[in-house]
């Protein structure tokens, strides 16, 4: 499935995350491969406001993504602004109306406005995905940094557990966990988080390892600074960049995973308009009312793609520091 295949395809572009490089040589990491053409443009002297605008315009995909995400964020925090209607009450005489001016996304089988439901479902879906990423980021980060910073048998133990987690497809892992935990948004978040803890642990380890072996950390140690000072002042700030870029990327994946689980009926109970449940509800009307699955599906796809685009931009800019 997409959320399993995509990260492995994208991750190697981030520095030091190639899983086939468990203990990379410091030398290879100091010259980070970048994209020469864009890198050259990026380094040109800043030309103030006009230059920045031109840079955005030169990347219409990024601009579009950012605008769309702005809409999504508005929908998440103030759904009433975009869709003032009631997502839970419908007019059954207006059931299964196709998209039009009265109902932008059409209406569902009970006559509820689909656009209103998608907008009001945003906060549910995004919140669940956000909780999932935060849990995965914090726990994966702690394990990864501990493994990279402490090394030795702790590193071995943690990374073998991570290997085991990586061996299981993340959606399968989430499904197993949610069957044990029971249904509901929070449980979906925990299940999705467990699926991506391993990815975070791996990249956090490789980043802290890279920083730990660099000369300035060696210098700081030889000056006699305590271990927690080294960790706080040198390792964490320098390892954070790629981890945060991954977090943005994983956020997109988490939205997909959360939608997949709510599509399967593990999410918030009906009639909560979670994106995945909206797609699932429309499944029985595919022949008669295709918009019920297509439009929420397109919104999910657009959101995930926009987030991926943004994650790429963030990762790319980080590289040039």
């Amino acid at each position, binding site marked *: 499935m997409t959320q399993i295949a995509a990260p492995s395809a994208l991750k190697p572009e981030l520095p030091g995350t190639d899983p086939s490089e468990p203990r990379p040589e410091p030398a290879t990491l100091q010259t980070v491969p970048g994209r020469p053409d864009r890198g050259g443009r990026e380094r040109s002297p800043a030309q103030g406001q006009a230059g920045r605008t031109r840079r955005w315009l030169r990347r219409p995909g990024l601009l579009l993504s950012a605008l769309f995400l702005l809409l999504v964020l508005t929908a998440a925090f103030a759904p009433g602004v975009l869709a003032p209607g009631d997502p*839970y*009450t*419908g007019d*059954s005489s207006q*059931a*299964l109306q196709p998209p039009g001016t009265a109902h932008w996304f059409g209406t569902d*089988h*009970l*006559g509820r406005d689909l656009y209103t439901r998608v907008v009001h479902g945003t906060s549910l879906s995004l919140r669940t995905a956000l909780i999932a990423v935060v849990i995965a980021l914090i726990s994966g980060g702690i394990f990864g940094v501990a493994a990279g910073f402490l090394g030795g048998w702790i590193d071995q133990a943690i990374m073998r557990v991570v290997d085991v987690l990586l061996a299981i497809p993340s959606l399968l892992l989430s499904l197993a966990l949610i069957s044990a935990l029971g*249904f509901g948004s929070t449980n979906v978040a925990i299940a999705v988080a467990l699926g991506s803890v391993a990815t975070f642990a791996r990249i956090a380890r490789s980043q802290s390892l890279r920083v730990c072996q660099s000369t300035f950390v060696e210098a700081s140690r030889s000056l006699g600074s305590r271990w927690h000072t080294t960790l706080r002042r040198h390792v964490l700030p320098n390892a954070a960049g790629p981890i945060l870029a991954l977090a943005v990327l994983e956020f997109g994946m988490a939205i997909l995973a959360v939608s997949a689980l709510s599509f399967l*009926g593990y999410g918030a*109970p*009906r*009639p909560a308009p979670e994106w995945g449940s909206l797609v699932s*509800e429309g*499944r*029985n*009307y*595919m*022949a*008669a*009312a295709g918009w019920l699955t297509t439009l929420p599906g397109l919104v999910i796809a657009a959101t995930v793609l926009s987030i991926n685009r943004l994650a790429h931009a963030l990762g790319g800019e980080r590289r040039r520091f």
Partner: protein
Amino acid sequence: MTLAPPPHSRTPQRTFSGSRLRALGAGIGLSTLLALTACGGAGAQSPAADGGGDPVSGGTLRFAVGSDAGCIDPQQVGSNDSIYSTRQLVDSLTDQDPETGEIVPWLAQEWEINDDATEFTFTLQEGVTFSDGTPVDSEAVAANFDRALDLGARAALIGGYLQGYEGTEIVDERTFTVTFAEPSAQFLQATSTHTLGILHPDTVAASDDARCESVIGSGPFVLESYTPNDSISLSAREGYDWGSSLWENQSEPYLDGIEFTVVPESGVRAGSLQSDQVEVIGNIAPQDEAQLQAAEAQLLARTNPGIAFGLRLNHDLEVFADEEVREAISLAINREEIVSTVYTADTPAATSILSSTTPDHADLSEHLGHDPQRAEQLIAEAGYERTDDGGWERDGEPLEFEILWFNNAATNAPTLELIQQQLAAVGIGVSLQEGQVAEWQTHLSEGTFETNWGNITRADPDILRTTYHTDLANSYRLEPSALDDLLLEQAAATDPQERAELVAQAQEHLVTEYLEIPVVDLTTVLAVRAEVHGVRFDSGSRVHLNDVWIEDAEQ
């Protein structure tokens, strides 16, 4: 087909000649049988009666269903989608006329019941064999009944059918007496169900799980292969010659075989029918009806007998202790809106706790109206006060409850969301909790639900006793009342008139006190391609496929 069946089976017979009615039991008039030509509710005419020429043999019927219960043992499955196939594998002792509710001979050619309905003596037809050649005799039937009560949780229906079962006494090879500890008038109807279909003694002796994978019966079709959640393949039984007295074709089926496939999406099922990938589909969704009619498919509908779909309240809950509140819930529900929005055109709103096709159903629709103003008034009379957010509250307790539901029919979720909207309109808060089908019985027996949404298909009003009598499972935690006596009396009543009277009183008790809130009568709808003839509903709104033939089938 290689064997030539007796000549009468080759020509369609509009009426039943005397010779075909082998030794019918007492009390069955010809009028009963003539009524057969007009089958079921709206749109349910038997296609064979519409003409279409003489039946031809051959061809495979392809039948798409929505789900698979993971089991093909007719004694264990309760899901309609699985019964379509398992019903074809077994014969029953009796059959029930879907129009009149009359019990007619099938494997049993005659029977006697003692005065207090505790002893049932059956005499079997001669020459009936299971598909491996073993004769269907008294011992085989006794083995079925003796084993049935040991079946696990999957066989939820059988407990009610054989309740109070003491044993089966074998008189001779073809005669046996089934004895009950207490009056059990419903047992005769129970013998007509697929649940008490007669299985091979070896199948009976196998473990519950082994029986789910493969069964041997004496029915018109034999199981070829079964792949869970995918397909079930049946072939015609050669030499079959003991069909129910209600069928037009009592010998070998016209079809060579039947192929059941599981297609979960209703839109895909409808598309498969239109593009001639299947001949019959089950679980028609209302949004596909127009499309199917345009494709000139026959839509056959019949309301399932038994307890109507409704909200079943757990009476342990404080909130349901007030009759005013229960009546308000019923008044807040707009059954007409639900039926027209969510269900197919042939589905009727509930008119009693029993659905309209159940024998002895009484029309109590005047108690099941829609009146939101009156509902709000009743809630206020029960001592509730309006809260700021439009809900109701009494002594700090909000007026709200949870509905536990199971996704065993595509209409459940939309119906409940609509009920939730309708109840919210008068200020009653409802949350929906989806459960797993496999946990249904546990929830019922342990009372771990506030309200649940469901129905029970059974073509006998005794289902009221097995569901609501307080000495039995009493899943809904009712207090003992006069209802118990009514339910016991109808179980012992052997006079049909007297029984109908008692059943009507019991329905009135349940409906006017709003002990359960009936909403809609489950209606089975099948779509059948125009070239297929003879698909006919039985009394439980499931199908017998022995009469089915396909025009221009390959010989």
